[in-house]
């Protein structure tokens, strides 16, 4: 094809500056396009390296397809070269490519075919960021390119404004001409204005989910690209100037709604990027940046602050108020690519709500933006709060190193803290070393000090464990949490621990601190002394030889592969099947698990405790989920769910006891007996009666069936179970009709100490009656958290003096309770076991939870608050019986109905006495307080061994 030939479909404009090493790859990715009707125009921004030579050769090799333009002087930005390229373009469509990136092989064809099919002015495809060092790929804003779709205008999808790249898109050439779309030539972020202009004026915008663009990301490289150097003042200045240009375009072509969307994007994205790491900037720079940003941020309407995500909104609001400390604390807590996130602000409670700090609360907007009650600092487990500690001093005294630091105490939750400094080899928690730390409260923070003496210093192996994690482990309020450490650079440089590696000091002689990519401190092996330096030098010399380098690289790969393979499910299963399950059976071992390791609770707990009482010889293993086993008994073997230790225990155990299901892919060996207690009788359809499982293929159903067929006995509390639950689940195990062990205490009431302790813990000190609200599980609430289907304000107003309400979300759902209600409402999400909560409660409000069957045993009032009854029971899930017909209490559909029912609990009890008796007779027939004992007698204390099936 020569230039006299017909117009190519696509012109790809490639811009380059001093990138001789990569430009050929970029150009080749265009030449390799499956759509052959394309041309490349490379515009060189006056490079000073080999780029022109490389390009002249390429242009000579492909005279019809590659055109090379060299700008007479360097422009310093991407705008001028792109404009120069477009000016020479012949294609019906235009694309842009940067010299360090590549196009997917089918990019042009997919984009052109969509453009022709949809008649759109621009078509957007997926951009994938590729970390050059690791090869890791992440999709750029994947939610924008999920499906093939055509938008009539930007108004149909304002979120497109988030994607400001000009590169992953195809533009109709006529469209660029018609709208006079050109790049700014004297600013960074020229993409932003160009993209906004294009979005606002395009007649149609089409999307395809196919990858079109490979964005090669080199971290920590000397040649930082513009977007990586986003922090300096000049960049912020340009950003603001560009954003003002975009505002002008929106004013001309757009709508107020689009302006709002853009403002939100500016707060959540642009401003956030520029303020990242704000706390580490010198004070003068901080002030300078505030001065630049403030006038613009002042012009943003209050609505954008209210609608943006909470933390970026707080940061932007602080800019508006010129509050440097506020900006710093908000950015400290923002978790991102470059930040682990740590709490440094002092939260305050005002009028029953929680605020980010005590400043700006007299400004109505400040009050709204800084209100962080919904973020749950007051209720979430400490491990979810991103606590962080700042090192304040490092002192060396001979071989000993003393560290001190501070931890911000959120709302005084770190009660009676204990702390230790912990370090462990990355990827091998068994090489873990602990030093006790002294910790004390100091106002709204805690200060701690720890001394690492040579005797207590970590003992690395050398070579194989180059990196160590380093945290402050804090135990407080019954929870253990690892707190990341942070420090100023000078302090990090000072921190190193002398060590004696197992492989001698020739390998290394200290663990020195460094700042990870996310900003927290970790330790790495290093050499300081003569011997170690010599050893280190010898090794680096070896590594600089070709053979040595190859071996070293190979060793690294082998180690990484091994690690990855060990983490893979298939490897774990192979160990489980071929090794652990073939070890001799440990006849005394019983593995307990409740709700997939989330709790120490329910019938497994009741059986475990009965077993302890019985004096039968056994070895208990409890499985826990999460980082630390918070709330589990201290005197049993604890294994983390899905760890190798867990698989080993399961593979060898004589008994498995759980209430939901050990991992489905673990086969049960012949010598193991599986006692499945289950966790509730059924109202909703279960197992193969559920729509989702009904719709499965036979392969999927067979897998579920074989997981269920591992059960040897299945506990039943009523014949209703046999008709519904076990039939729906196709349980072929023996039904043990003994009732639920967890319900023994409901009948026997023989745990007064536990109940009293729990009352104390929940501060139930007066004689108000206690209500327990315990709704059923709704999967969508995993993300949103529990939203109460009645008005808490009204509840507190009407009943606050009479009742205390305990709110119990499902264990997978969170709930944030404003402190304003603390007098009459408690969040009991973090209490492991619901049974003692039922014992405390004078009445229960539920909807469809199986808790109804258990609580009924107590013969106390039950209220069914079911605003969504028709939807929930009618069409979506289906039920085994008609709740309205048999419920031992009223069904309420509105808040008013609920509150009416609550006014007189005694009357309620009387009114439903008859139905209550019938309900218990039907659904609790085997619950007689002896379930745990029956299980223990059958399997553990009687002379004969219990049922065992293959």
């Amino acid at each position: 094809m020569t230039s006299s030939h017909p117009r190519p479909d696509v012109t790809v404009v490639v811009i380059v500056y001093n990138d001789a090493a990569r430009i050929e790859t970029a150009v080749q990715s265009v030449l390799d396009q499956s759509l052959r009707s394309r041309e490349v125009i490379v515009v060189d921004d006056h490079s000073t390296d080999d780029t022109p030579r490389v390009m002249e050769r390429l242009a000579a090799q492909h005279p019809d397809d590659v055109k090379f333009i060299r700008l007479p002087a360097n422009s310093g930005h991407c705008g001028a070269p792109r404009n120069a390229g477009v000016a020479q373009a012949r294609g019906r469509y235009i694309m842009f490519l940067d010299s360090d990136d590549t196009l997917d092989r089918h990019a042009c064809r997919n984009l052109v075919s969509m453009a022709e099919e949809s008649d759109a002015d621009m078509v957007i495809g997926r951009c994938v960021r590729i970390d050059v060092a690791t090869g890791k790929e992440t999709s750029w804003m994947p939610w924008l390119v999920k499906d093939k779709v055509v938008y009539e205008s930007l108004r149909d999808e304002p979120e497109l404004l988030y994607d400001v790249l000009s590169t992953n898109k195809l533009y109709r050439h006529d469209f660029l001409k018609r709208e006079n779309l050109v790049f700014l030539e004297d600013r960074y972020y020229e993409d932003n204005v160009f993209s906004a202009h294009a979005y606002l004026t395009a007649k149609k915008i089409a999307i395809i989910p196919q990858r079109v663009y490979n964005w090669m990301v080199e971290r920590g490289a000397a040649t930082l690209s513009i977007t990586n150097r986003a922090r300096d003042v000049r960049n912020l200045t340009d950003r603001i100037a560009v954003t003002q240009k975009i505002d002008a375009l929106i004013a001309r072509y757009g709508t107020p709604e689009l302006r709002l969307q853009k403002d939100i994007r500016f707060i959540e994205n642009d401003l956030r990027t520029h303020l990242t790491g704000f706390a580490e900037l010198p004070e003068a720079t901080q002030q300078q940046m505030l001065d630049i940003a403030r006038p613009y941020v002042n012009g943003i309407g209050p609505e954008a602050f209210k609608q943006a995500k909470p933390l970026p909104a707080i940061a932007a609001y602080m800019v508006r108020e010129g509050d440097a400390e506020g900006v710093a604390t908000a950015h400290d807590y923002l978790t991102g690519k470059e930040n682990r996130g740590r709490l440094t602000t002092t939260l305050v409670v005002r009028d029953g709500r929680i605020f980010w700090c005590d400043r700006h609360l007299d400004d109505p907007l400040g009050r709204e933006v800084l209100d962080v009650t919904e973020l749950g600092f007051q209720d979430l487990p400490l491990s979810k709060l991103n606590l962080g500690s700042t090192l304040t001093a490092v002192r060396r005294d001979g071989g000993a190193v003393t560290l001190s630091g501070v931890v911000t105490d959120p709302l005084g939750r770190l009660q009676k803290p204990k702390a230790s400094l912990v370090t462990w080899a990355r990827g091998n928690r068994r090489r873990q070393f602990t030093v006790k730390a002294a910790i004390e409260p100091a106002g709204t923070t805690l200060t701690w000090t720890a001394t690492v003496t040579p005797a207590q210093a970590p003992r690395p192996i050398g070579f194989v464990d180059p990196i160590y994690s380093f945290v402050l482990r804090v135990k407080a309020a019954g929870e253990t949490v690892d707190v990341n450490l942070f420090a100023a650079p000078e302090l990090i440089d000072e921190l190193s621990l002398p060590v004696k590696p197992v492989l001698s000091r020739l390998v290394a002689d200290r663990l020195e601190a460094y700042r990870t990519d996310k900003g927290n401190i970790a330790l790495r092996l290093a050499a300081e002394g003569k011997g170690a330096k010599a050893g280190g030098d010898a090794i680096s010399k070896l590594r600089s030889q070709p053979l040595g380098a190859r071996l070293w690289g190979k060793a690294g790969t082998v180690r990484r592969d091994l690690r990855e393979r060990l983490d893979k499910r298939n490897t774990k299963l192979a160990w489980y099947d071929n090794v652990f399950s073939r070890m001799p059976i440990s006849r005394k071992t019983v593995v307990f698990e409740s709700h997939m390791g989330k709790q120490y609770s329910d019938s497994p707990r009741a059986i475990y405790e009965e077993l302890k009482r019985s004096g039968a010889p056994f070895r208990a293993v409890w499985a826990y989920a999460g980082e630390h086993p918070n709330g589990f008994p201290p005197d049993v073997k604890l294994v983390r769910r899905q760890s190798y230790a867990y698989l080993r225990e399961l593979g060898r155990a004589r008994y498995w006891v759980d209430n939901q299901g050990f991992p489905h892919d673990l086969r049960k060996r012949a010598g193991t007996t599986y006692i499945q207690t289950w966790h509730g009788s059924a109202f909703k359809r279960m197992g193969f009666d559920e729509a989702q499982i009904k719709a499965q293929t036979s392969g999927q159903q067979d897998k579920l069936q074989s997981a269920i067929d591992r059960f040897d006995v299945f506990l039943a509390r009523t014949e209703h179970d046999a008709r519904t639950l076990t039939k729906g689940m196709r349980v072929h195990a023996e039904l043990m009709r003994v009732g639920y062990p967890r319900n023994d205490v409901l009948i026997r009431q023989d745990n007064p100490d536990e109940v009293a302790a729990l009352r104390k813990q929940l501060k139930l000190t007066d004689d108000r009656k206690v209500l327990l609200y315990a709704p059923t599980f709704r999967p969508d609430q995993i993300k949103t958290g529990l939203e109460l289907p009645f008005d808490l304000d009204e509840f507190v107003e009407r009943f606050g003096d009479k009742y205390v309400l305990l709110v119990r979300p499902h264990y997978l759902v969170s709930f944030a309770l404003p402190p304003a209600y603390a007098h009459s409402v408690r969040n009991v999400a973090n209490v492991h076991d619901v049974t003692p909560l039922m014992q405390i409660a004078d009445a229960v409000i539920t909807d469809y939870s199986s808790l109804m069957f258990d609580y009924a045993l107590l013969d106390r009032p039950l209220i069914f608050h079911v605003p969504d009854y028709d939807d929930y029971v009618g069409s979506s899930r289906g039920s085994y019986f008609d709740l309205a017909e048999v419920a031992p209490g009223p069904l309420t559909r509105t808040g008013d109905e609920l509150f009416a029912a609550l006014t007189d609990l005694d009357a309620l009890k009387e009114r439903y006495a008859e139905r209550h008796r019938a309900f218990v007779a039907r659904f609790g027939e085997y619950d007689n307080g002896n379930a745990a004992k029956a299980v223990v007698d059958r399997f553990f204390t009687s002379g004969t061994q219990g049922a065992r099936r293959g």
Partner: protein
Amino acid sequence: MAEPRDIFIVTNAVDELGGLQQWAHDVSGLFSARGHRVRLIGVEPASVPRDYGSDKPYEIVTLHDHHLPRLKKGLSRPLRRRSRARQQAEGARRLTEMFRQAQPGGVVIAAQVWAGEWVAKADTTGLITIGMSHESFEASKNSSRYNRARIYYEDLDIHLALTDADADSWARAGMTNVGAMPNPLMTTPATLPTLDEKTVVTLRRLSHDKGIDMLLEAWALVGPHYPDWRLKVFGSGPDEEALRRQAGELGLDDTQIFQGQTENIDAALSAASIYALPSREEGFPIAVMEAMAYGLPTVAFDCAPGIRELIHDEVSGGLVVTPGNVPGMAAALERLIKDKDLRVRLGEAGQQSVKKFSPDSIVDRWEALFALLAR
């Protein structure tokens, strides 16, 4: 009229009994009618052969004389893999010979991924290469076909799914050479139903994936309330006995429901007023297209994007129900039983919308695709 091309359609077996082979013969005929030179190639002989007629305007070839052994998991797998690689090389050599005779602009279509292995090993230089997934992305994902498609379709010019939604799923999974091509509707109704017959009908193979068990459960919730209405299931299959037993347990009369295999689709569809599609897995169900062509409203589980591509819920073609939601299917059937106007409205709208899958429009789309891939 587009330039005539050499078109090779490669399937597992050309005369196998099945929807895919029916499709292959249908499009071979349609392409031939437009003047293209079509060769329909099977990799191996059929295990359950069916007569697709003779005197075809296209050539039919089978690469191997014998049924090839499948690779099963186990210790002897590497050995068997080697012996199959030898056989495959022989088949690929025959394919290469045929491909070499093609004029420039020729097209190779691997209609199934197993057959695609042979295409991948043959020399396709100068030809347009296409691979097809005649099932939903989800169904591929649940089988080994997902990984094999990633391998053997990766270097083809394009990998065609049945719907845009399925192609999007493949694109999200990382394949970029993906597009969509629906099946053509080959049926022209001889007799149109009046929508007054009190019959719900389905024509299905009696196997787990077709979900007749769920239809029976749903019918047990509705049927007894409308004693003059009948459910008729045409077809046979491995689960027949179990399904008859299940019907009995549900209190239904299995002799009234199960009609056995029929060749006369026209009679079955024209004597019904509602079509039921209780499948667990589908691609782009021809059964629904046929029902639409007859103006029958369909009640279907939303088991694949192909369902929604055909049925616009509540608007045209019928009603769509969450997969496995038996009470939901019962409720939808009941709505249609009670409301003739709804049957007519959905049926007529469906009859209109299914026209875009007429043989002519589908072949136009194919020819446009060939032109795009040659650009």
